[in-house]
């Protein structure tokens, strides 16, 4: 099958790529662009480790074909921090609240949280839990992640600035 030429806007940068039409976005991000912060835990849409933002919405990049992202904006974990030596408030809160253990779920969790807070800047605990219930973590027991997201929401609204 012939490769297809697509244009991806990833973390603000434009890439033109020739990809096999069956390849997933996760795969192209990780292998062609070497953005390995996007993790693959199941490749079947069950774990959320591969979560990225596509035009601001959180999606499972293992279930999305790269060609579907043609001319659309992709945000991966590498593109979230405002600068190389700063963290996004969500990332900062994850560090401060001990919400990270092995870290394999973390990039996906952080991006799912970003999507949640973009749409609901002051979520209740129940809303956080419902919003991220598609992202599995086997290490932390989740509570510190819930705390971190709550704290990040507060920080973002207090400072009035979203990085």
């Amino acid at each position, binding site marked *: 099958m012939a490769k297809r030429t697509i244009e991806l806007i990833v973390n603000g940068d434009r890439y033109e790529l020739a990809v096999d039409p069956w390849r997933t976005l996760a795969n192209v991000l990780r292998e062609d662009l070497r953005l390995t912060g996007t993790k693959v835990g199941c490749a079947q849409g069950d774990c959320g480790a591969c979560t990225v933002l596509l035009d601001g919405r959180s999606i499972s990049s293992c279930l999305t074909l790269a060609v579907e992202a043609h001319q659309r904006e992709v945000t991966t974990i*590498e593109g979230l921090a405002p600068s190389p030596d700063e963290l996004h408030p969500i990332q900062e809160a994850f560090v401060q609240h001990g919400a990270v253990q092995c870290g394999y779920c973390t990039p996906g969790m952080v991006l799912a949280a970003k999507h949640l807070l973009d749409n609901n800047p002051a979520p209740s605990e129940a809303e956080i839990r419902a919003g*991220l219930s598609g992202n599995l973590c*086997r290490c932390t*027991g989740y509570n510190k*992640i819930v705390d971190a997201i709550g704290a990040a929401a507060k920080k973002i609204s207090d400072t009035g600035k979203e990085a």
Partner: protein
Amino acid sequence: MQDKTQEKTKTQVLTREENELARRLRTADKPLTVAGTSIGRRDDPLKVTGKLKYGADYSAEGFLFGKILRSPHAHALIKSINVKKAQELEGVAAVLTAEDLPGRNGFGAIIPDQPVICGDKVRFVGDGVALVAAETETIAHQALKLIEVEYEPLPGIFDPRDAMAEDAPKIHEGGNILSDDKMVKGDVDAGFAEADVILERTYQVPFLEHAYLEPDTTMAIPQPDGVMLIEGPMQAPFTTRRNVAPVLGVPINQVRVRQIHMGGGFGGKEDSPIDLSCRAAVLAQATGRPVKITLEREEVTIQTAKRHPMIMELKVGVKKDGTLTAFQGVIYDEQGAYASLGPKIPPAGGSHVHAMVMMPGPYEIPNVKVDAYLLYTNHPYGGAMRGFGAPQVHIAHEQMMDELAAELGITAVDIREKNAFRLGSQTATGQVLSQSVGLRETLESCADRFKWDERLAATGWVDQAHTKRRGVGVAMGWYRTSIGTNGDGCGAAVHLHEDGSVLLYSGITEMGQGAFTVLPQICAEELGIMPEDVRLVKPDTDLVPESGPTVGSRSTTLMGNAIILAARQVKESLMDTASMMLMVPTERLDAKGRKIYDRENPDKSLDFAAVAARAMAAGKRMIGQGWWTPPVPSLDGHTGQGSPYHVYTYSTHMVQVVVDVETGEVELEDYVAAFDVGKAINPKALEGQIEGGVAMGLGYALMEEVVLVEGVTQNPSLQGYLVPTMLDVPDIQPVILEVTNELGPYGAKGIGEMPNIPATPAIINAIAQASNGRVRRLPADPERIFWAIKEAGGPPQD
């Protein structure tokens, strides 16, 4: 941490050997400055930005991709195998069968009974019958399809009890009983004669999958000098090396194993890296090229080790006042197709013996008899999973305690209070608990924090319509620190440099539990510097001393001690040097906060770095090497009597649930978990272990099970194998108690596995307390709860 009580045990009764070891460790009685604080995990910033590299993230350019052809049969003879077509496929570099192997065709964490490639027969669905290495993953997949194998199916064994029958088909040459262990104390018949109530119950638990989020991956990279380099996420680099060398037919020093940060392990990445490394290594050796094998999620479930299923038959006698008089147990411990971490490493290593020792629970019982059988079947194999045989038997004894209490009309807390271990208690192996026994304290603090009495009194219907009932549950637990083998030693090295910076060499691996944060903390504490002054050298068998595996909740305690001993050797150089510089005798010197100072005149001090520079210039020893071996374990092979593990962590969990008696659905409302950890080196990391462990125990209680039909895994994906989500986990309040362990670094005991253990029975007990529905075969999914309530004649009517 909400609650923290410092408690010194006054009446420790250490043995001579323990005393001697404790003396080696003892530090001057000064307050800790670095150990005991919640410093953040060092690599967190790398993880939240996606910069930390896991095995799958390393570029595989120039690599071949390895794949394993798996048996579709649970038990069969291999009649013929034809790889010609696969070999001819363009892009295929090698197709290997058993005949092509250069060395030993077997690997295993304890005994090498698992073929690298099956030659004559297969023993479970997923067994490897051929290996392929190809230029791309797609080609490797295509090649697998071109291999023709002819099997002759054999009858399989899918229930461990069937494995014991005289005429059962033999899975391995030596028969199906891999281990037959006994523990006998006192006289159970006499004990039962004294009892007012005797109950007999059978409890059963299924195979469990670790479901670490990172699928297994391994790279084997041949080096120009002939050395085989293995890289991958793994808990036991040394065990891996010990297996790869004979499989390649080379000496151990020709294999180098480097650990890559793990995306979760929980015991599972003790075994599977051995398997993948051996297979990747033979492919790399055959082709002379680097080979990477990465498992797909379904392969992880089908191929890698699981938590052992067990059928546990208990008969327990108790007096009217709740005093236990006799405990008799039988364990049918299902090993599955291969030995993995099940069998005994004398005297008390291996998961099977551990399960046997733990089976009667943390209670004083004068008469005990346990028969424990470890049995091969044609299922996937049991390995290590957070608790190593202990979670299973806790599910049995903790349910039994509740069933006895109900029969006697006393509360679940009363019966535990009556029998719980205290300092000086004798365990079922006849071991006298000589120190650091905080079990009763955990019960007391847990009940306090949870408000057990009030909550117990308030259980009952939640709604007018009488569909939902609220209830409470409790479970206690104990867990060893160390692994019960004679060779449970652990080495560390500390290299001091002239600018005061330090390199710490340890073979303990990081899987998210925080070892890479806690171990430098201990090193910094001992030297009187800051954790950031210590850089930990990542586990690499060419560089770090043999440290044993990262299992058995042994990292902090055993490695911590090795580090302390190593650090002391360089500290001696520093103190000698400082003594000369300050003209103060060494006994008066202390080190803290990068200063070395005169205790009697703290203003008289020197910078740590200046002393290090002077020590170096004077040719003093700048390298310290520490080796720690815990007290020698003992366990008689016939009677199961002795001291198998030198110290135990203790815990009590309490939980409140609401059960929908019409649907069997359960909601967890509140959770308190109390632990005696000896000493919390990093309270925040500890809290993380607690919350994660409880969540995993919740999964075991309510939803997790690898479903097998005729040996075929029915739910290999994470859609079929359910693990707890954010919606399932309640608020968890940890309570930390510190009853000093004289043989641990700063008094610490292991904690990695303990939180996982009482969680499951606490939840099951709460469901029964709320609804009358007692589920003796896990998981307690809504259907089983529904039927258990029916079987009990319905929920309580009050």
